[in-house]
């Protein structure tokens, strides 16, 4: 079973590829750290029970001024 870090590395590599990004080797550590933190932040916002039936805060208006 891959460790969590290895899984994140694989996900990072695929995400970089499908988004057309080619980072420098020196950026890898920082990117992986930020990517992992990002995944945790995404899980965190989905843990908010009160958001279950809440609307997003960005409102679209059809009559653009």
């Amino acid at each position, binding site marked *: 079973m891959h460790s969590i870090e290895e*899984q994140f590395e*694989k*996900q990072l*590599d*695929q*995400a970089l*590829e*499908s988004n*057309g990004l080619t980072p420098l080797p020196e950026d890898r550590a920082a990117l992986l750290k930020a990517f992992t933190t990002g*995944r945790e932040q995404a899980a965190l916002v989905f843990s908010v029970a009160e958001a279950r039936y809440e609307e*997003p*805060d*960005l*409102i*679209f*208006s059809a009559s*653009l001024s």
Partner: protein
Amino acid sequence: MSDTTTESTDYDPELVVTAMLAAARLTVSDEEKAQMIKDFPVMRASADELYLPELEFYEPAPKFNPAAYYPA
């Protein structure tokens, strides 16, 4: 164009879809995954084509209103 054409891509859709499903913690059937692998390049292309140069200084349409929920 039928739903089985696979687009040429500079990435491997199978690896990308597998990684994304794992990241999203989703377990899907084999044929569902197979269809996702065929569909991903079409989705990726339809997203990429929205990055039009003339949009460089466009703001997104939906707006944030900080004063909502405060008595006027």
